[in-house]
């Protein structure tokens, strides 16, 4: 791990496009300003890890697991939701890379 010391107002550059600036240091808190291209997502680590953990738990479910959990739950009527799930329809055309063949 690279270790660096920075003072308030000083920055780090990661490559040519990501800049992290120390805006304030107060007690145990460091306030950072991050400038990055939109294509570079920036996450709070604990939130990212929580979402990742939820996704992994979700991927562990089988069809029978979900059916069992839903067994006594009535289907939520579509009318209850202001914006129900709208499934893609066959007539909708894809765009971009989504219309390529499956990898072999």
């Amino acid at each position: 791990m690279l270790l660096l010391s920075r003072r308030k107002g000083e920055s780090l550059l990661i490559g040519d496009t990501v800049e992290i600036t120390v805006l304030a240091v107060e007690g145990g808190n460091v306030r950072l300003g991050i400038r990055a291209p939109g294509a570079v997502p920036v996450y709070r680590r604990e939130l990212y890890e929580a979402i990742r953990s939820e996704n992994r738990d979700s991927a562990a479910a089988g069809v029978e697991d979900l059916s069992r959990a839903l067994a006594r739950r009535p289907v939520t009527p579509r009318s209850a939701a202001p914006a129900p799930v709208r499934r893609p329809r066959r007539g909708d055309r894809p765009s971009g890379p989504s219309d390529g063949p499956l990898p072999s």
Partner: protein
Amino acid sequence: MTRRPSVLKSTRFGVLRPDAGSILTLIDGLVGFPDQRRFLLVDHAGREDFGWLQSLEDGGLAFPVTDPRRHWPECRYAFSADDLRGLDLAPGEDPDVLVTVSVPAGGGLRLNLGGPLVFNFRRRRGRQLVQAPGAPVPAALPCSFSPVEKAKAS
């Protein structure tokens, strides 16, 4: 140019033959699964309120999903323009929203409200977001990762 037919052997749903027009692309992959970008939305048998995002890269990988607004009509997310970047939504057009669902061993369901999947189904493009703390979901809807849905199976 003739595209070769696409066939996926999935562990949950058997052989799937998605046509190009049914494939959803998650621009950045799923959080924790960055290489999984192409999916098929498969119905959960007998349930129109739950489905599965089946990976087209890995036949053994699928995620139960649902629209949280079907269960909590008051559910609101406030997405920034950056959140919706690359979805090709028309000005003022709202994204469709799904969340992944997990099935805890102790029963019930858990909805991943903190990591909504936003889609433009018309363009078949989507992205999973990592919502900032205090993201505007209704107070009655915990946006933490604790169980928020306890449909008891027994």
